[in-house]
């Protein structure tokens, strides 16, 4: 296997451009055969291409975004006037619970993962993620979680205890029936999916970067996703445990007492576990968005980013500090006063790394020649709105203010400013920016500007009045209010803003629909950007790059000259092989064969999804599910390892003639 001692394992040759072009055509043909996507419906279920899985995540997440948006719209209609009877209290409870749950678990996290699963492998210059089949399994697990939530909602047994489902309200005494159980199993499924994607992202970035992309040359978006992935790994187990223990408390024949005060249990334990996940979750949504911003600003400012190292350190610092803030969601509970002071301090401390990022972005724009295309406009909108959300965040982090406005519409306004401003605005920017890479066509600029303008105005109309309503004492999660409260005008204003936002979203849909077919065609690098995803055609071929390349700087497409930056050749054209490189310096290390397309991930997700659904009704589903999952896993392992192609002795593909 290894070559004889002392002989170098790689060699460097100089190749004339004519030969390179010939070699590239030859590689294109051969690689297309090895990496081509399988056909038909079964093939669709088996497809492990990271780009297709990424797009599926994004599209599915946007479908959930649309559904949850419709629920929000219905809630705004209900609250538009006092004493409205459009939605009754029970339906309203289901609507806000499913809305919040969807936005957090079925939209915000998966859409960010989908973007990363598409772009991270391209940006580090490899052919696919590290474990393509696990990746496919992750998508189906997410889909199964979404179907659980909406299946139960469609049967009018939707979750109704809020997106954080606090016991005792969600416990067996106050929430009989199966509503909360569907919620908690949905959590398990979607968190499995998030964890799978996190492992994929870290392993791909750690081991599959192109030669030369040392840690200090990784694109900032990729850094942001690595930090996010580590946060997912340490945060998501907490919510799985919280919802799992809740499900055990609720399940007949199990009936543990974790959250039952009569038997020594503690409802605050649930809140601690939930927010130990829940606060990092905010940053799990926000950090990918800052990655978009750090990636987009240099392109549209036409200069390399200002302060690469402080930006990376800020991301990492934010990731750490985010785990020390969770109690600020619990200021209205009897946690020790000293603890509250500590968490107030930590909450204010996290403004430091975020401030550093903000200043680096402003400095980049300041020192460049900004081109105000739609993606940059969304980023500027983000800076404005997130600033307001950050300011109310600092207010809420102080105990006295929090005690005043806790569980009022002030909090609703705050977190919509943070989440929509901090995540959805950059996400739209990223979509306008990368749409040409997905489809080969631009989204329409003029429709994009209308989309932004209406969304921006509609957003502020909807959510700004909520600050005031909260200070006037309107609590969140009330299905109606009486006319004497005097809240009618501001509520009507908020509801009219929702209409404007709805129109903006329709414009966006129309833009995507139209531009996919008739948009202006884009070349491989239409924005003249600097990162590797633009070094391959739009849309990229199934294998991403015919010849891998090396990088010698942070902005390879701007700075590296072809005469000195080597290409990489010699990966197999007979099987799906990728190059692994060393963790720190990205020296070529060894070659690694990726798994073929397969139906087993789908079947495993099916078995796991069915057993978690069964677990809502009887504990026997657990051992049964384990048994079936093991069977599927045996077949996965066995069939996956049998050689499919004639295993030729591994002939080296000559670099060039």
């Amino acid at each position, binding site marked *: 296997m290894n070559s004889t001692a002392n002989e170098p394992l790689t060699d460097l040759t100089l190749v004339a451009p004519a030969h390179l072009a010939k070699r590239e055509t030859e590689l294109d043909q051969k690689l297309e055969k090895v990496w081509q996507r399988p056909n038909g419906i079964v093939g669709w279920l088996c497809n492990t291409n990271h780009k297709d899985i990424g797009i599926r995540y994004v599209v599915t997440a946007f479908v959930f975004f649309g559904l949850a948006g419709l629920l929000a719209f219905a809630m705004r209609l209900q609250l538009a006037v006092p004493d409205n009877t459009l939605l009754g209290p029970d339906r309203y409870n289901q609507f806000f619970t499913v809305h919040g749950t969807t936005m957090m678990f079925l939209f915000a996290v998966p859409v960010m993962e989908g973007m990363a699963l598409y772009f991270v492998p391209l940006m580090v210059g490899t052919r696919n993620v590290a474990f393509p089949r696990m990746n496919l399994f992750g998508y189906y697990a997410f889909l199964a979680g979404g179907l659980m939530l909406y299946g139960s909602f469609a049967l009018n047994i939707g979750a109704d205890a809020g997106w954080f489902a606090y016991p005792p309200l969600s416990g067996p005494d106050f929430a009989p029936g199966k509503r909360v159980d569907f919620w908690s199993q949905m959590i398990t499924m979607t968190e499995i999916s998030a964890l799978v994607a996190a492992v994929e992202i870290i392993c791909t970035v750690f081991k599959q970067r192109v030669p030369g992309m040392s840690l200090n040359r990784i694109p900032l978006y990729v850094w942001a996703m690595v930090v996010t992935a580590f946060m997912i790994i340490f945060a998501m187990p907490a919510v*799985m445990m919280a919802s799992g223990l809740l499900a055990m408390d609720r399940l007949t024949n199990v009936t543990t007492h974790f959250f039952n005060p009569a038997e020594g249990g*503690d409802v605050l334990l649930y809140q601690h576990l939930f927010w130990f996940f829940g606060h990092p979750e905010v940053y799990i949504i926000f950090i990918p968005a800052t990655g978009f911003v750090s990636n987009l600003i240099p392109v549209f400012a036409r200069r390399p980013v200002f302060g690469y190292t402080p930006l990376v350190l800020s991301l990492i610092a934010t990731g750490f500090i985010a785990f020390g803030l969770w109690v600020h969601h619990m200021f209205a509970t009897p946690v020790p006063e000293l603890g509250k002071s500590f968490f107030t301090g930590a909450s204010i401390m996290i403004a430091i790394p975020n401030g550093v990022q903000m200043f680096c972005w402003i400095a980049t724009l300041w020192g460049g020649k900004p081109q105000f295309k739609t993606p940059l406009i969304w980023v500027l909108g983000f800076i404005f709105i997130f600033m307001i959300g950050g300011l109310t965040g600092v207010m809420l982090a102080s105990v006295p203010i929090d005690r005043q406005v806790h569980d009022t519409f002030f909090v609703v306004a705050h977190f919509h400013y943070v989440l929509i401003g901090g995540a959805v605005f950059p996400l739209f920017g990223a979509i306008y920016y990368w749409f040409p890479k997905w489809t080969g066509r631009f989204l329409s600029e003029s429709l994009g500007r209308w989309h932004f303008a209406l969304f921006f105005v509609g957003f502020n109309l909807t959510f700004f009045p909520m600050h005031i309503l909260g200070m006037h004492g309107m609590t969140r999660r009330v299905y109606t209010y009486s006319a004497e409260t005097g809240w009618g005008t501001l509520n009507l204003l908020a509801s009219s803003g929702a209409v404007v936002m709805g129109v903006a979203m329709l414009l966006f849909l129309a833009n995507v629909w139209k531009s996919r077919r008739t948009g202006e065609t884009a070349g491989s690098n239409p924005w003249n950007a600097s990162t590797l995803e633009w070094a391959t055609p739009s849309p990229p071929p199934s294998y991403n790059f015919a010849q891998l390349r090396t990088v010698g700087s942070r902005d390879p497409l*701007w700075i590296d000259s072809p005469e000195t930056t080597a290409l990489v050749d010699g990966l197999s054209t007979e099987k799906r092989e990728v*190059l692994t490189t060393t963790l720190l310096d990205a020296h*070529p290390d060894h070659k690694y064969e990726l798994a073929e397309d397969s139906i087993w991930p789908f079947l495993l997700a099916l078995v796991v999804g069915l057993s978690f659904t069964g677990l809502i009704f009887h504990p026997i589903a657990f051992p049964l599910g384990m048994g079936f999952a093991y069977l599927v896993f045996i077949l996965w392992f066995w069939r996956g390892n049998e050689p499919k192609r004639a295993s030729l002795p591994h002939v080296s593909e000559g670099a060039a003639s």
Partner: protein
Amino acid sequence: MTPSPSSAPRPVINVARLPASALDHRSPIWWGNLLLLFIETTMFALMVAAYFYVRQNYNLWPPPQVNSPFALLRPVPTLSLPLISLAVLTLSAAPMIWADRAALHRREGAVKIAMTLAVIFGGVLIAIRFREFRYLNCRWDDHAYSGIIWTITGMHLLHLIVGTAENLLLTAWLYLHGMDEKHARDVRVGAVYWYWIVGIWWILFGVIFYGPRLWPQGQL
């Protein structure tokens, strides 16, 4: 700003002679396994945190056992069988270390024997563990204390079952198809998983069985 194409020759690195696998931390799957263990360790750490959190709610820890026919004032978990199983679990690392080292040196015969031993150890351990629940001296649905120690013990048993099932599958493959580079790597990655199962139980065992003995709460 894109450098214009030029007619000058371009350097090309040929990686064809690089090895087609790595048996250690250079392999992506080794990292995948490590990250899985981060996830699992976080989960157990949170369970231990939950254990100590509910402890604050009791005047006597462990809480007196009044639901069973034999009322116990201080029902600390019994040590006898659990200590034996801890010893067996620790010993089970030996065949795994053997398999690990043999895989590194590609000694297929030794790997097969060591893996068979590891599977046998796993089976014995699982059998003991199912009996071990009654040594906790409570039912899972008695109170919050019993719930959390049953959950910790049960989740560790679950990992033991998964690890053994994985070893069984891999061993069967080795006997039927022999050991190539890829499966030598799988043996080594599986060994890391097993070391973790052994190591984490030392901590969890200490919390469940010795915690209430060394630091009992409340006055008798």
